[in-house]
């Protein structure tokens, strides 16, 4: 693993970004890593973009903000947010896992702004990074029973890239601490589904 390994989880208020960051962070902390999470959730309930920076290191704690251009992995819970993050923290070698389900900004909803089509977005992202994978996480989560599981699918997808020392059992123990016992299996199922999906992303 590159040390420190810099992850950005990006999305929109209400998507559970902070929770996803904690799940991932706690899993890695359990594995003995120093984890720093910086969260920007001031506008979280009001339609704004929400971003978490995760720094993972064997050596020591790192700052809660990733330097410009130095992300190693971007997990986008909402597709256009990946592009916004790339512009500030991206580089050709960064890996992206992105959900395909858009959440339209109010400017798009009211007809003032345009939202790009997925192929259009994919080609914009491809101009800035060599390895971006889009997966239908929300769709799959709905099939599993609840859209909120899309975050677990996304964390599973990130784990499936094999870049991080994420242990399935450690993830399970984190999930167990955060959900009722009856929900553990469905969360693990979502996690495994994410791991599987990242190997077979949406083709454009």
């Amino acid at each position, binding site marked *: 693993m590159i040390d420190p390994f810099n992850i950005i989880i990006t999305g929109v208020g209400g998507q559970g970004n902070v929770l996803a960051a904690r799940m991932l962070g706690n899993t890695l902390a359990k594995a003995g890593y120093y984890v720093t*999470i910086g969260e920007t959730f001031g506008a979280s309930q009001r339609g704004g973009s929400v971003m978490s920076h995760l720094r993972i290191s064997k050596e020591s704690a790192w*700052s*809660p903000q990733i330097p*410009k251009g130095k992300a190693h992995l971007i997990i986008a819970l909402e597709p256009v947010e990946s592009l916004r993050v790339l*512009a500030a923290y991206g580089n050709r070698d960064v890996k992206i896992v992105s959900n395909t389900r858009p959440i339209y900004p109010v400017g798009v*909803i*009211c007809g003032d702004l345009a939202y790009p089509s997925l192929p259009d977005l994919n080609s914009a992202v491809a101009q800035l990074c060599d390895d971006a994978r889009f997966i239908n996480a929300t769709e799959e989560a709905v099939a599993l029973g609840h859209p909120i599981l899309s975050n677990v699918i996304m964390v599973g997808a990130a784990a499936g890239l094999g870049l991080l020392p994420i242990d399935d059992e450690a993830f399970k123990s984190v999930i167990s601490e955060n959900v009722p016992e009856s929900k553990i299996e469905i969360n693990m199922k979502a996690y495994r589904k994410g791991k599987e999906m990242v190997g077979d992303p949406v083709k454009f």
Partner: protein
Amino acid sequence: MLLSKSEGKEFLLMGNQAIARGALEAGVSVAAGYPGTPSSEIIENLASVAPEADLYVEWSVNEKVSLEVAAAGSFAGLRSLCVMKQNGVNVASDFLLHLVLSGTRGGMVLIPCDDPGAISSVNEGESRYFARLMEIPLLEPGDFQEAKDMTKWAFSLSEELGNVVMLRSVTRLSHASGNVKLGALNRTKPAAKFNFSGNLLDAKTGPVITAPVPFRHTQQQGKLKKAAALFETSPFNRYEGPENPELLIITSSACYLYSREALRVLDTEKRAGILKLGTTWPLPPELLKKHLAAAEKVLIVEEVLPFLEENIKILAMENIDSIGKIKFFGKNDGTLPSVNEMNPDYVIKAISSILNIPYTGMPEEYEKSGQILSFTKSPNRELTFCPGCPHRASYWSINRALTLNGENGFVCGDIGCYTMAILPAGFGTIKTAHSMGSGTGVASGFGKLKSFGMNQPVVSVCGDSTFFHAGMPALVNAVHNNSDMLLVILDNSGTAMTGFQPHPGIPSGAAGNELPSVDIEGICRSIGAKTFTADPFNVAETEKKVLEIIENERGPRVLIMRQGCALSPEKKGKKKYNVSVDSNICKGSDCGCNRLCTRVFRCPGLVCDSATGKAMIDEIICAGCGVCADICPSGAIKRSEVAL
């Protein structure tokens, strides 16, 4: 985790959780505060364990009262904590000025959480200057472990000195998380007793007063000198780096993490060193002198204003004979900005320019295409009120009434979610916005300008929590001075913006305990303001009422618009109405109203279908408030009550 007995166990903790745990390890008994981002989780965490841990925790009416409540705990010999966001210290500062003179008994810690960069604020105020102004010790944790450990230490330091200690956090510690090892937790329930029968001049047994001032002030300054001496050997001040660094960085708080990162990124840890200060007022002079003497170039990294920089420069000047000449870099020479929050890039840039080390964060070409692609392909996410938010409906009526009145009336805004009415979300209705309660104070002033020919209708808005916090004195002022203004209280039943903390109008306390509530309408009437009420979801009636009150009533008036926040536990996920658009009636872009519903009303649940230009409801996002049915001039939007 908060009450875990597993000493030495490591957790990934948010800074505010670490602070709460530190207070518990210190044996805190009383905690009070007023909600404000990024500080709120400290009191929330303590409230969550209040009954089990024998704690008294309250959300006070405002920051000044919270400091007074916490001080009472200290006067009675208990350890007490007071928490607020940065600008809260301004509110509490009058009591603080006197508290620091009388001194404290049980360990008392004041924790302001600053918000550099105003990520969740309408200012980027500095609490650090208050420590110097009030002549009290200032502690600044440099990471998450220190957030816990220094909070714990702050209580014993306060007892050792006999005065309140300030511990300052910032957004990037409070709302960030890191590894924290727990310390021992041995909670006992101490008995409270206020002793006052001793000698007038005895700080421990006499009355707690500020007189005689020269005597107490001398004592206070003695405490500060003692603090400086203690800080010389504090483990929270430490140096990392070569013996004679080419560049000495002096820093504190989250800036320590940025500075350390910058040195590593530039691979320059052998050339430059970091003096990380955990005690930033008063400065420990001998420690500073020793490190300044070993350096010729010094960079001071802090956010926002040059607080450390100024104090270090004074110390360096006073000791120039032993320290020698130093070239300082920091805010004053423009090496670092004195607005906005710090980040690793600012520090990397500063060090690379001072030591002449090339660094590229992002190649210029990449940056350029990134900006263009992001600008053209990722549509801006403007902030807006939630679907079903009563504020959108309230501002719709206020804005329409002022427009119909046609006398160029305006609204003086206040602090809460509803401040967003400076944006299209609230139709740009707010024309002044400052601090808690100020909308009504400013309106009270505007309402007295008739004799100078100002005939514009004057309206202020204020939330329920803000009304109790600082709106009440402003309303009293308006009534007493017979100001011609209307205060609209946007009562959504909670301190919604910061996460639904209760306030005096709510029948429960911080720990969910039952409490008497104070009636806003009754207060307004008893003050002597003509008081009206409205349900903002009844758009037609509310608009009519606002217009009538503006046109037909004079003097100080209050209109309480009551409707619960869409995110309140009682309302969230429960639709009152099923809403739909009849596409046969909706004329879309051809409607004479210029798409009032989607273009102007702008609720995220009401979508403009790009194919047809017509409106439609997004069932997933719509909260079912039904307000948009009243907006459509053609009656194309239908609502039907959801059967319970």
